[in-house]
């Protein structure tokens, strides 16, 4: 069982001091420890952006892929070997801009994995442009007169795409986030957590204080996580009060549950050698 020491890597962390990513990094490590995971059985997949460096900072199996493609990459790994615990990390631009096309399909497909989106409502690594979760009117280098369209609502999208575990966390509340990650990894199916993580360098608007003044926990108000309609109502709450916690959590058969022929044996264990194709060849005669 993994310890905090085991998870350390030799890489120097290059996130800005105070970056919201630190809360996610620590919450993830603590979740792995709480779950008693083995490093070898865990795969961390990340995309491109500040979040992508997660692969450098957690000493588990890792695949640092390309921008926007965390989900199909992670799905490929999980389909090949369902015994692995696969956790994808993406940024808001990574997942909701470049990789949006994969998002709703992954939610719908329900491969048993976890997706954690570092949502700082701005593009960080490219030095501060608007993203699809930037608030309307948000001024950035690419939107000097303010963002024109309204912000994207990933939580609502996940809910209407038949999501089975839909949650939102705040990296300023590491303990709460850790609990969400533990529940997400335990969930059988596709678990999605959108995480507010303030960008201290490029997002002057959505700061730690801004979030602290607004976020409240769904569980504190007796939210029923099995009620999708209620969850959707909560997903549209934005303004003086913004909910975090689990919006919806109800399992349905995973993608793998429907693949009866490979349900019990990972593809990695199906022999590659001596595959006899005679019966198929005979049909061509």
């Amino acid at each position: 069982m993994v310890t905090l020491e085991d998870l350390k890597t030799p890489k120097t962390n290059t996130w800005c001091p105070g970056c919201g990513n630190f809360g996610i990094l620590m919450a993830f490590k603590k979740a792995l420890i709480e779950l008693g995971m083995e490093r070898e059985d865990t795969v961390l997949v990340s995309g491109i952006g500040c979040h992508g460096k997660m692969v450098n900072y957690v000493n588990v199996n890792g695949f640092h892929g390309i921008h926007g493609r965390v989900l199909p990459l992670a799905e490929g790994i999980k389909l090949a070997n369902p015994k692995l615990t696969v956790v994808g990390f993406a940024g808001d631009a990574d997942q909701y801009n470049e990789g949006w096309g994969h998002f709703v399909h992954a939610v719908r497909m329900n491969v048993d994995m976890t997706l954690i989106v570092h949502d700082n409502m701005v593009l960080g690594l490219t030095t501060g442009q608007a993203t699809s979760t930037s608030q309307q009117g948000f001024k950035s280098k690419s939107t000097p007169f303010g963002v024109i369209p309204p912000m994207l609502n990933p939580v609502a999208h996940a809910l209407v795409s038949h999501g089975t575990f839909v949650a939102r966390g705040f990296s300023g509340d590491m303990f709460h986030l850790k609990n969400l990650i533990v529940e997400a990894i335990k969930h059988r199916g596709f678990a999605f957590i959108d995480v507010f993580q303030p960008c201290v360098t490029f997002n002057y608007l959505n700061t730690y204080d801004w979030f602290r003044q607004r976020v409240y926990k769904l569980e504190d108000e007796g939210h029923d996580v099995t009620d999708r309609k209620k969850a959707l109502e909560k997903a549209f709450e934005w303004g003086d009060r913004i909910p975090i916690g689990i919006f919806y959590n109800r399992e349905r058969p995973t993608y793998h549950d429907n693949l009866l022929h490979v349900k019990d044996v990972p593809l990695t264990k199906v022999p590659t050698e001596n595959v006899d194709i005679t019966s198929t060849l005979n049909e061509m005669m």
Partner: protein
Amino acid sequence: MVGGEAGAGITRSGFLFAKTCLRGGLYVFGANDYQSLIRGGHNFYTVRAENEMVYSQADTVDLLLALNKETILLHKDELVSGTGIIYDGDQISITGEEIGRDDIKLYPVPLRNIVKSLEGPQIMENTVALGAAIALLDYESELLNSVLRDTFKPKIAEQNIEAAKQGYSYIRENYGNSFGYRLKKTGSAGKKRVFLTGNEAIGLGALNAGCKLYAAYPMTPATSILHFLAPLDREYKMVVIQTENEIAAVNMVAGASFAGVRSMTATSGGGFCLMSEGLGMIGMTETSPVIVLVQRPGPSTGLPTYTAQGDLRFAIHASQGEFPRVLIAPGDVEECFYSTLEAFNLAEKFQIPALIVSDKYLSESHGTDEPFDQNRIGIDRGKLITETEYRGEEEYKRHKFTEDGISPRAMPGTKGAIVRTNADEHNELGYTTEDPVLTIKMADKRFKKLDALTKELENYETVKLYGPEEADATIIGWGSTKGPIREAMKLLSKEDIKVNYLQIVYLHPFPADKVQKTLQSAKKTIVVENNKTSQLSSLIREHLLTAVDHKILKYDGRPFNPEALSQSIKGVL
């Protein structure tokens, strides 16, 4: 040839006729031509049957099954003296005058009325026509019946057999033995031969190679690989998945490969454009899926259901930066099968992406072959660590520097090994780096694999030479032009014109030495390609500093026809 509107079962009917020929011991080639629509338009399927190996369709038509009038008028220039046309005389009125020919034999058969009398569906008219064709050719109707029995469910098969019988009798009773062509069962009737498309052969190769994850998004003409594999996934214990797009497909097969299984995707040019970024990631992360690129004419959407060889340079160079890859271009169904096995081995052995480049003509035409030898090419997974525990002396390094550039490859889940890879430049452990020295070392490591691959390929049949060693000219080609070229060579040899043919099967790394050896002794070189700019000629110039003497290029979306090709060759001799 069978021709008619889309949706009228043209390909199916042509295929059934072809298989009927196959079962009589004949060698058969079947090619389809269809438009990008579901109903209407004009589709046709040509079957060529011979006593000896046949490599392509012919230029002309001896017997035409015309399911509409348009078919007759569109193909009238391909008819030869004595061509027979079977059609429904009650539905189509046509005369020799209208065709502009007095040497054509018209065989009206009341297809619709026969089907009506049998209370069958309208599409069964095709089977009546097939029965009529068998009678005209004086062939054996039992062979057609056996094909019908294997194709349809028992009740429908019997209905079709009756339909064929009625078509057969109608010809016998009304036209006797008036048709000039005969088909005869040969001594090898009953011998087991396969009749399949290039895409099916690639699919079979993937199954035999132990491919365990196939992910793809539909795109003509690559889709039939998905259609072929999807119903077989349970039998072969694999996952076949239609992804949301090609970007997902390429990333998914990369992930599966990283996890330790053989994986493959296929697409055509447009989809390959979308896969290009993923291809580079595969190169950088040293994962090893197989990617099949089935070409069609471009640019952009081009002619979606037709053929071309315009993506050679694109496939060699696709994606930013520099990294090794292997590119194989099979030229017939047999090579489609064995190339796929080789592609999987090379991809895993050298931890590189393997590209199989084919085209619509090869992928959807049916060819005859001996049943494939499942033991000819073994499975070589290279430096894959299959033990459940890593026992190395030092920490496991996914991108460890080695003599040949190839690092031992552990699967995630192996005890004692943390497997980390990275699309960013990385160190041996897979952690991101921006260090200039390490950057050079890693690039050099990846390219050492290209050296090792090039050496390995010396033992492969990367080029093939057909025809006499001494010849007046050497034809050079790659991919699906092989069939028409070999048929053209048959025609030329009948006129005592000696040409040989160099087929380049492995285009990257380019087998420069082997090509050079042949070209040195060539009196005249002629490149034959289905593209506008002769990309193979440019490759030859790049690698050998040699200009070819002549180029015969066709870029109308259609394959070469042997007779026309032989005339073009004669024209430059």
